[in-house]
């Protein structure tokens, strides 16, 4: 990362006022990020979403589980800002609580995939030889299942619910993280500074933890952010099919599905949760794109 950041600075127009001050690589990343309006929009969406999820009980106008039978599928009004669902529950409140499920599943799944997949990629890339061969063939097997079908197979085996959905999403993401990290490690381990450290007698654990890992954190953050978007979509899709998060929990995918039966007469039941999914996914995609461009523009073609 050190080397690549410096190189990209020289290709950028320098601002006169800043030229005299010492510049840190982190400062450069932040500056490039702030200049990118779309990236800031993404950051804004993600921050708002996080606040919404944490403060759901404070923000939600109604109890997401309380159903008023007289108001079944009520149209949006002052009483129900986004209308009520098929059981007379406030859709806005359910969307607000649904952000908790979406974020929880995505954060846990992507976190687990980063640790497991990243670990596999680190070992495979650094060890090389037959270890690399065996590990990556295993990952190839998982990658041979088209998107969603691996998750469906896993969920059909484990059963549904929040934890099981998280596991399915994590397993789906593991091989992708392993490949990204392995690719990074393969280029890093031949770099002069790593070879120098090795020549000085650094052992494998030290090489991995001190010299290699810190330099793959940037691409991991970018990849993680883009995968948050995919993880949220996958959870929503599983829940939509009835294989993911189960009622009465408020999941956006589930809410879209529950409105399907009344689509002809009351499209608002389906529409609003879908918009919530779209804005959230868009936010993570914008953030990921922005981080990638800010950290290392040359990664653009790789993810």
């Amino acid at each position, binding site marked *: 990362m050190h080397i690549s950041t410096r190189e990209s600075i020289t290709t950028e127009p320098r601002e006169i006022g800043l030229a005299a001050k010492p510049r840190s690589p982190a400062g450069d990343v932040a500056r490039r990020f702030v200049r990118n309006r*779309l990236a800031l929009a993404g950051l804004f969406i993600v921050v708002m979403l996080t606040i919404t999820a944490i403060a759901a009980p404070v923000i939600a106008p109604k109890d997401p589980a309380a159903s008023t039978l007289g108001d079944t599928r009520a149209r949006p009004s002052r009483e129900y800002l986004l209308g009520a669902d098929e059981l007379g529950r406030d859709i806005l409140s359910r969307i607000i609580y649904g952000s908790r499920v979406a974020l929880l599943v995505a954060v846990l799944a992507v976190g687990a995939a980063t640790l497991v997949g990243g670990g596999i990629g680190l070992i495979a890339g650094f060890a090389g030889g037959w270890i690399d061969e065996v590990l990556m*063939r*295993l990952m*190839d*097997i*998982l990658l*041979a*299942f*088209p*998107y*969603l*079908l691996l998750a*469906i*197979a*896993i*969920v*059909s*085996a*484990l*059963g549904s619910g929040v934890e099981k959905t998280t596991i399915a999403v994590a397993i789906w993401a593991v091989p992708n993280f392993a490949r990204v990290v392995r690719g990074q490690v393969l280029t890093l381990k031949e770099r002069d500074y790593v070879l120098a450290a090795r020549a000085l007698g650094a052992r494998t654990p030290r090489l991995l933890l001190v010299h290699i890992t810190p330099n793959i954190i940037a691409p991991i953050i970018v990849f993680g952010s883009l995968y948050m*978007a995919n993880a949220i*979509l996958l959870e*929503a*899709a599983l829940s*939509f*099919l*009835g*294989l993911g998060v189960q009622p009465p929990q408020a999941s956006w*995918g589930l809410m*879209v*599905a529950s*409105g*399907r039966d009344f*689509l*002809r007469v009351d*499209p608002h039941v*389906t*529409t609003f*949760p*879908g918009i919530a*999914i*779209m804005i959230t*996914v*868009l936010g993570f*995609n*914008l953030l990921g*794109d922005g981080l990638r461009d800010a950290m290392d523009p040359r990664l*653009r*073609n790789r993810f």
Partner: protein
Amino acid sequence: MLGVIFVTMLTTELIPGDPVALMLGENARPEQEAALRKHLGLDQPLPVRYARYVLNVATGDLGRSIQTNRPVLDEIRDVWPNTLVLAVAAMALAIVVGVTVGVISAVRPYGIIDSLARVLALIGLSMPIFWLGLVMLYVFAYYFRLFPVGGTGSWKHYILPAIALATPSIGILSRMTRSSLLDVMGEDFIRTARAKGLRGASIITRHALRNAMIPVMSVVGLQFGQLLGGAVLTETIFSWPGLGRLTVRGVFARDFVLVQGAVLTFAMAFVLINLLIDLSYAYIDPRIHYD
């Protein structure tokens, strides 16, 4: 492929509901259960069953559906052309629209059209296709009554499912085409072509696009996986009698033989398509040879 079969078996293996108990109902006697278990081969340990399944698959026998007692191969044979046609239609749409938009974007990078196209591409790939499908269903089938609500038949049945399925891929392909083309446009041979006095359009179509297509094609291969998976969702929404709906039906019926066969078919199709795409590189770039 053997690994794929093993993972498929392993997952369906863990299904919590016991299919045997489910088939016989609550009042089954233990000896009935044991007999059925033996009939399904479930009394054997996993490695034995795995070996047997692999041998059966090699001879084209995927077992019988627990739910309908029809051979799984027949069930799949009935529906897979529907899924293939839908996926290919969506892929064609995604390639045509995605590459076109990407090229237009790359002609004037950072211009108004490019910015607009990039934002639209991002929105497209952020869209949950099951939701997009439902919205289109409401607007074009219920409200304007332009297209049928679901099922197969005329060409009109294809429009909505194909668009819903293709939308995320259009976004991804246009982004990929744009950035790949911009990379190529910076190369020396493009400058040479310009120096020869060639016009912009000719440079892009004859020189740049061909060289930019390799990374785009590899993404097309990966996108096919997305499309096959997405077919599960679009088929559910548009009552499309395909492999995706069959899989979902199998999952809900705890029909593990059917789910195994269907998931396996999906994985095989995906692997096969990527093989074809690898081979197509030699056509796009004559420097690549396969011996």
